[in-house]
């Protein structure tokens, strides 16, 4: 029946502004980020959280990138649940590392599979996952003694007697997922590897999708194997271009080497990162203002991915 799909799509339309989506995150929430080092970071979304002055957040991810580093640099974060992080060859997550060294936040530091297993238990709705990583390590020692004593236990397998570590289920308040394509309901498609995106979004209480392209559901239905989160689990869809810049978005755009180097230079000091946040996040006032500030179309079109290579 002509028009049927369209009517259904309108009824399920969850597209909101970046500002309205960021308002779904409250002070004190646990936020699962979707990036991995220099790729597919939720940069536009993190900028908006900073502009709205969010505080006391817990951030979680297997491997943090620039979005986590900015949020920590802006003083929005009091706790981390993570396995590591970097800006690849451009440098370290200096704000995170500095806050860790100065004990300005609690860093619950796992193996990355430990974080994934916490999400997996949360996603399945079971209380914990047994695992055999981290045994005998200082990772486990510190979580047990300092940073997360309520989140790990050790026991012997009741079937075989083998020694096991149990990690407690984690259900973040919000998972933010930066993707290449979504429909208006939030059926979100990811090109490239998905690291822990599936487990994090299933574990979360709310899911916010930030997408480069917004398409009709019929496009999603043509290759449903690429959908990583079903739309009915999504609370808000944000449609902004270059939402991961200066990190890469596979098949859409490459990372911005010049801007990453600029950021790494600024993030060396607290004063530098404060300047960066003021100049690139606060003063431009919006994501479109940020895109103009980093060079507008001249910069952004030069980053466009080659369709064969994907970068």
């Amino acid at each position, binding site marked *: 029946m002509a028009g049927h799909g369209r009517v259904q799509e309108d009824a399920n339309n969850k597209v909101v502004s970046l500002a309205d989506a960021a308002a779904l995150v409250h002070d004190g929430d646990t936020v699962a980020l979707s990036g991995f*080092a220099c*790729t597919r970071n939720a940069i536009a979304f993190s900028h908006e959280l900073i502009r709205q002055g969010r505080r006391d957040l817990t951030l979680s991810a297997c491997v943090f990138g620039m979005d986590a580093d900015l949020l920590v640099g802006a003083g929005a974060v009091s706790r981390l649940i993570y396995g590591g992080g970097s800006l*690849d060859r*451009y440098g370290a997550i200096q704000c995170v590392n500095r806050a860790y060294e100065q004990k300005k936040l609690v860093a619950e530091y796992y193996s*990355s599979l430990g974080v*994934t297993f916490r999400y997996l238990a949360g996603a399945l709705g079971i209380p914990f996952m047994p695992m055999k990583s981290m045994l005998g*390590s200082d990772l486990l020692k510190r979580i047990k003694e300092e940073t997360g004593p309520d989140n790990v236990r050790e026991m012997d397998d009741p079937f075989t007697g*083998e020694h096991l570590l149990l990690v407690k289920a984690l259900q973040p308040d919000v998972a933010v997922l930066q993707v290449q394509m979504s429909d208006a309901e939030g059926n979100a498609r990811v090109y490239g590897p998905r690291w822990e*995106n599936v487990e994090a979004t299933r574990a979360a209480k709310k899911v916010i999708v930030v997408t480069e392209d917004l398409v009709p559901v019929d496009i999603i239905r043509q290759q449903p194997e690429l959908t990583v989160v079903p739309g009915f689990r999504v609370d808000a869809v944000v449609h902004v271009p270059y939402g991961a810049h200066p990190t890469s978005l596979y098949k859409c755009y490459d990372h911005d080497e010049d801007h990453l180097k600029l950021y790494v230079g600024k993030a060396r000091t607290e004063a530098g990162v404060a300047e960066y946040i003021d100049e690139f996040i606060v003063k431009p006032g919006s994501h479109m203002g940020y895109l103009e500030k980093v060079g507008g179309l001249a910069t952004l079109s030069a980053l466009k991915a080659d369709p064969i*290579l994907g970068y």
Partner: protein
Amino acid sequence: MIAAGSRELRDDQVVFAGLGIPQLAVSLAQRTHAPRLRVLNEIGLVDPHLIELGVGNADPRHWYRATTFTSFLDVVGMLLHRGVVDVGFLGALEIDQYGNNNASEVARDGGGIRRFGGGGGANDIASHAKATMAIIRHERRKLVEQLVHNTSPGYLDGGDSRKRAGLPGGGPHRVITDKAVFGFDEETHRMKLLSVHPGVTHEDLRESTGFPLDIPSDLALTPPPSEEEVRLIREELDPNKMYVSAF
């Protein structure tokens, strides 16, 4: 180091290799004696065949022509934790004489710590791979008596302590430095010298190692890389010296 790492790999093995020297060692092995080596990457990749070096695991240059795009849970959980990975390469800030590996933080000269990014999946690799190989610059402050942080366990306190802790993987197999190649004693699981690179003196080895070192008088020389290996590294694998120059 690249050639020494490459020669430890066998055809048909399943290998975890991160950016830099490990990646180059694997590529060299694939171009020479081990064309069917399968590489996994924790970001969710199986068997990529890159044509251009990128800036890290998260750079799509390193995903090129993979056979599978999947998830962290699949690669690190259902392959590595499941026990099917033969060799895992590890970088290190510090290594002790039992092959325990610090990937987290070091002591600052003036007190306090200097934090690095964190190990990511390094602990998972050290816990579960059938064998691990660590690559580290040979310095007194890196091959140490006592780690600042045991991120990725080797043989813990030696003997059977790794097994008693419940760790399923085989533990450290080799430590490859820019001066020597180490293996591990089968009983005590202490690190032992297998060969020294040409041009490195025994005195130099002793001075640049932070734990006591037994140097056998008949210690072998590490075979130098062949002309073809040198050519592949310089002309094809890392022509711009992105990673070779780091050591």
